[in-house]
């Protein structure tokens, strides 16, 4: 199919983009990499009055590094993370994750900010930025604000972004030299959306101990009990695994995710494998 007619504008800077988006009560959509939006337009799944093309805005492609964090412009592409064109604050985690998003053609165009703003539950970046404790800088008609990644994702395709907000950048804290991470996803075939994803970050020096479950057609889930059960020095014994399984069970129970035994098993396995890869690094 072809999309329904829409207006297309390409603002010169971020301020102009905000103005263009705010000029319409609804129906303005930001076009970054277009890897999800364009197919949705073609399928006519979402009504769009005006496309505002922000992919080339310098302000959205900048990298700002400080002593303890790096802020990535929202329109940096997955491929730029994969190719190490930008620094990695997470000791290789962002590069690893980026290199496994869909397939290379998607990574050449798709952007980190586009992925986070759409909040497709299967998108790889969501659990990663949550586990790393990132924050989001958002520009709207009333100015700029910052929120934690954990407040950003309300549910599948639902975020804290308002109708006229633009995600400007994602600030990711740096892991310490002792920081560990793990990422695992269960995927039916190469390049497809994963059935489950899990990110694990373990960096006691920075006080970070985080396990986040993603995909399964639901919003991301912070696994509090599982995170608390993570210990760097516990090794990967049967006993440690049993304790983690129990903790995962409690987290799923607390989230009310016990209706589907297959899903529970897939989630448990995804999280365990993510933890295993974090611990054996």
């Amino acid at each position, binding site marked *: 199919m072809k999309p329904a007619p829409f207006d297309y504008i390409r603002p010169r800077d971020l301020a102009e983009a905000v103005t263009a988006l705010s000029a319409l009560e609804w129906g303005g959509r930001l076009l970054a990499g277009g890897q999800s939006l364009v197919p949705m337009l073609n399928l006519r799944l979402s009504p769009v009055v005006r496309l505002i093309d922000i992919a080339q805005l310098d302000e959205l492609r900048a990298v700002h590094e400080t002593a303890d964090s790096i802020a990535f412009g929202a329109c940096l592409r997955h491929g730029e993370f994969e190719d190490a064109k930008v620094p990695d604050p997470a000791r290789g985690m962002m590069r690893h994750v980026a290199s496994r998003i869909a397939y290379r053609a998607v990574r050449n165009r798709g952007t980190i900010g586009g992925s986070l703003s759409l909040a497709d539950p299967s998108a790889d970046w969501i659990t990663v930025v949550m586990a790393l404790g990132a924050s989001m800088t958002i520009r709207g008609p009333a100015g700029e604000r910052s929120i934690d990644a954990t407040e950003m994702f309300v549910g599948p395709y639902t975020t804290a972004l308002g109708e006229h907000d633009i995600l400007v950048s994602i600030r990711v804290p740096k892991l310490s030299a002792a920081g560990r991470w793990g990422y695992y996803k*269960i995927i*039916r*075939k190469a*390049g497809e959306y994963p059935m489950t994803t899990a990110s694990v970050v373990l960096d006691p020096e920075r006080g970070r101990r985080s396990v986040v479950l993603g995909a399964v057609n639901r919003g991301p889930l912070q696994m509090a009990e599982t995170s608390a059960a993570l210990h760097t020095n516990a090794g990967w014994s049967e006993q440690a695994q049993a304790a983690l399984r129990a903790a995962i069970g409690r987290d799923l129970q607390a989230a009310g995710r016990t209706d589907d035994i*297959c899903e529970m*098993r*897939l989630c448990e*396995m995804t999280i365990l494998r993510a933890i295993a890869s974090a611990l054996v690094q």
Partner: protein
Amino acid sequence: MKIHADARGRILGLESDVIVDAGAYSIWPWSCAMEANMSAGIMPGPYQMQAYRGRGMTVMSNKPPLGPYRGVGRPGACFALERMMDELARAVGREPHEVRIENMVLPDQMPYLTIAGKLYDSGDFPESVRRAAGMIDVPAIRERQKTNGKDGVHIGLGWASYVEQTAHGTNEWLQRNLTEVFGYEAATARFTPDGKLILEVAIQNHGQGLETTLAQVASTELGVDPADIVVRHGDTAVSPYGLGTFASRSMVMAGGAVGRASQMLAEKVKRIGAHFLQTDPGNVSLQDSAVVYGQRRVPFSEITRAAFRHAQDLPAGEEPGLSVTTTYQPESGTGAYSYATHAAVVSVDANTGLTKILDYVVVHDCGTIVNPMIVDGQIQGGLAQGIGTALYEESPYDDTGQPLASTFLDYLLPGFTEVPTARISHIVSPSPFTRYGVKGMGEGGAIGAPAAIVNAVNDALRPLGVEINETPITPRRLLEAIIQAEKRNAG
């Protein structure tokens, strides 16, 4: 399906019911009974049996109509029977490939009339299994399986043998009471005044390389360089009337028609050439675009010059022009029968429900092979499709009849990384009933693969008490089966 067998696993009889959801409409001219009929007819497969009761039943529903898809009826028949053969072997405590060999029609029984009325033309079915068993190395896999269960990974070996009816002839369509009878194909072979050859056929190439293979046939008959041959197809406005490409018939039917037309054209070329060479047509041969007699030769450009623009140079009584139109129908009315044995080795991750193909062997016989590269390509392509059937492709509906897979986002197809390169070996048993002994072979890969892969998954998970008899084997289906088995084992 119910199978009756003795303690060694020799089949005594087979009972099967095929029920097909054909959707809302019947497709002309095959009718909505096609899938069920073909399944019931080919169900006995490569095996001998004294008794067979087969019933095909077509059910109308409010889904889109069912149309022919590579394999038509046979992937389902092969799946049911070959799943059963593995279970039969298990029941009598023998290796599945050995039980298959013991039940197969033997080469010295060919041509063999099956209990379902199909006349198998040629082949060595047991050899296909023996060779596949050697290539896949059964003892090595049984050894590897001793570590099954480590980290939840289980390796399994699965088999599928099948017979692929191709180039169905007049009798077959009459048996099925079809409104149209597709028993022949037509071709025109004609030279142009500058010595090129044009073939006009009513079949359609959609990727199986028929321009190449039909040119090979004409080249063999006429000694014309394939580069000088143009194949025109897919439009009866530029070709004689014919029936088209389906049912793995093009190489047998159109290949036969091109062969006959080329041979008849060759006779005229020889007569003209022999006249130039002042000898009898029986003394000349056609080589490298020339009529050859001893050391002397007349190039085709001289022949076509005379035939088209200088009729005064033709032998007395010879008509101008160089064009022949004719038809071909094979001698047997139920078709030419290719067959194969597939052996698949898979690893199944019982923790995720994901299946990976580790090795895949196909031992295949399609009679005379016209073009080895194209034949292997067809097998490999069919295998890709069969892997889709086994593991990925599905059109589910929800309780209100809403289709759940309406884009390729939801309808998964295997890609490069999911399709291993099969190790292929050929047996060559030319058909006694077709020109050149060729058999059709376009669908086989898709017929055998679902059964072989699902058998391999069952072999892998048998110690867990898991049995899967449904495609595609999605991670969810597999996990559900594993969880059910765990509950049974615990209870």
